[in-house]
């Protein structure tokens, strides 16, 4: 009896030990930084002088929102919305189109698939540097291409003009993000039962009717989830902007998360954490609204 109890205790300890990494790792690497960041948002925390950290209430938030820092937060918020909506719409549309092309097997499909997915395997910063040189106003390949096609007469400073800086970053972002949708949607499309299309064919449904009445409903849950994930990722993807324009010129391509990076590089961790907390709050609210509006459930 006693040995059975000891065996049970040992088993419980063993199970606990096995679970420990799964408990500790998220605590250390996710929740501790999150809580620490949350605390820092209410502190006057700058790496220039960490000996004098003090509580400052909502000063960091007030400072950011009141444009005291010489940065127009309204413009940054507007840029962020444009950045997310335009990038998402184009990534989704083009990614979906490519998925439909990849759905059926054809000769060289593997190679084509590899080429489509390639950008997704490269670091965002590297992609940004590559596009920065392509968009270079003096020696960039894009100006050269457009001149040879007769579309422009003189060089255009794509990243140097307020009107084109954010647009150029979005073009790079669309190119970078298409593979994500292609990967996810292709996998979902291949899971749709062929019998559904055969039945639709027999009922005389056109290809467009099949698309809207068979394809889309069958992969609805994947579409809803990928769009949600992508919104969060694009929102949190300052890498391209930071490496292409650093948010310039004159903050015309600055989005909230690239602004947060700027604050981190200025060593003002207090203000950067305040922006981070605002991003978390916004995305949490957006997710709840999105889930409610789309009536998304795990059974979808």
């Amino acid at each position: 009896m006693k040995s059975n109890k000891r065996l049970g205790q040992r088993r419980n300890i063993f199970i606990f030990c096995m679970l420990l990494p799964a408990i500790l790792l998220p605590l250390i690497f996710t929740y501790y930084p999150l809580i620490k960041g949350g605390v820092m948002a209410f502190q006057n925390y700058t790496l220039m002088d960490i000996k004098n950290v003090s509580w400052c209430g909502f000063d960091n938030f007030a400072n950011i929102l009141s444009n005291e820092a010489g940065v127009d937060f309204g413009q940054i918020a507007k840029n962020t919305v444009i950045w997310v909506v335009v990038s998402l719409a184009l990534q989704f549309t083009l990614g979906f189109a490519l998925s439909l092309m990849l759905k059926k097997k054809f000769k060289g499909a593997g190679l084509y698939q590899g080429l489509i997915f390639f950008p997704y395997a490269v670091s965002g910063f590297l992609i940004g540097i590559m596009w920065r040189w392509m968009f270079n106003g003096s020696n960039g390949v894009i100006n050269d291409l457009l001149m040879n096609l007769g579309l422009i007469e003189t060089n255009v400073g794509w990243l140097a003009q307020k009107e084109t800086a954010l647009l150029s970053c979005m073009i790079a972002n669309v190119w970078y993000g298409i593979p994500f949708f292609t990967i996810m949607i292709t996998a979902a499309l291949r899971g749709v039962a062929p019998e559904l299309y055969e039945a639709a064919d027999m009922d005389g449904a056109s290809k467009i009717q099949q698309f809207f009445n068979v394809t889309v409903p069958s992969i609805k849950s994947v579409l809803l989830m990928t769009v949600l994930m992508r919104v969060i990722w694009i929102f949190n993807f300052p890498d391209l902007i930071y490496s292409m324009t650093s948010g310039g010129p004159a903050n015309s391509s600055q989005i909230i998360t690239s602004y947060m990076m700027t604050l981190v590089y200025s060593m003002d961790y207090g203000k950067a954490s305040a922006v981070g907390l605002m991003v978390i709050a916004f995305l949490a609210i957006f997710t709840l609204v999105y889930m409610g509006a789309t009536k998304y459930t795990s059974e979808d």
Partner: protein
Amino acid sequence: MKKFLAILLAVAMLATLFAGCGSKEAEKVTITMVESLTSPERTATIQGIIDKYEAENPNVHIELISPPLENADAKISQMLMNGEADIIEVRDQTIAQYVNNEWLADLDPYVAEWEHKDTLSEDSWTSMHQLDGKCYLVPSGFYQRCLYYREDVLADAGVAVPTTWQELLEASQTLTDAGSNFFGYSFRGGSSGYQYIDTIYWSYIGVDKLADPNAGYYLKDGNGATIFTLPECKEALAYYKELFQASPSDSIAWAFSEMVEGFIGGTTAFLIQDAEVIANCSVDMEEGTWNTAPFPIGPSGEAVFPNGFGGWGMAADCENKDAAAAFLLYLSNPENNATYAANHAMVPIHTNASDFSDAFSDGYFACYSEMAGQPAVYRHATEPQMYVAFATFKTEADAMYQKFLLDEITDDELLQWLDEFWIEAYETEGQLW
């Protein structure tokens, strides 16, 4: 039996472990050194000096850590916070942060005993005692700017090499031919572009009007008044915009690599940069097509630019201070420093550097000798980097200057913003020079 074998094995392993600790290896002192301006060539030069030192001092091991350039300073900060580094690379951009946080040890006691201290240049002494009057680093060299110009283009156009800012503007305007995608000047409007307008302000004002060469935004005896209310600053801003107009339009976003590429790639005729670009030009441009000249002189009769530096500091909580200081000074002796400075196109820290290398008085470096020979004309000043507010300023200033260049704000609005920013910094943090 199994239990006995397991215990035996554990004892054997422990014995081996303790045996290792007790060997001569344990007496070996390990010094952890972290560099900031990492590049493969530079790491190789430093490693060469380390190898030489370790051969002469077998009881010392120098562990060189070379983080990627982009986040090296963040890595150094982390290591200093955690007490993991002994010798770190300190730069003019980072020294204020390290000193504010009390991460650096005072090297004065070691330098006082150093056999080579008498050959240190005046600039070296100034940079060593830039903050608090204590010696927080021994510099490894100076990044002084000069004017790079296209010798062939100027000869073809019959334009003389500019010696003043005004001549530079006129020459740039003459040579600009936007239709052929050729421009006078490699403007820097992107990251850290504010450093360039600062040199123009100071060259218009003159160093003697500044509160301190290391607090270049404040006026002498001004009790916190800034230079931005002076008429010279307004004139300098007007000049700055004209110079931008003689540059490629996209140079409003140019940072280091774009401005250098603009010159090397044949888009611009003039470039103002540190000596490190000499190496790039030597590799990518034909001899005779380019040359260097002294920094342009302003209306004040002075050419004022920062004497940018990098160097080596010792962590305040370094456990083997004597050993670390010994290596730090070895690294900085005239021979090693001359090798290092010559390999990486820096101005050396010792006055007798030319005894060890010809690189400092010949060819493209000749302009530096010329400038060093006229200390009343070629002078140094820098931004008030000792202020905590400077970190914020660095990230906001470029956008404000870009707004000015794009006519979104006027010169008065820009100067007012600069004035208010630095008056507030003075009121909050006090006089720090």
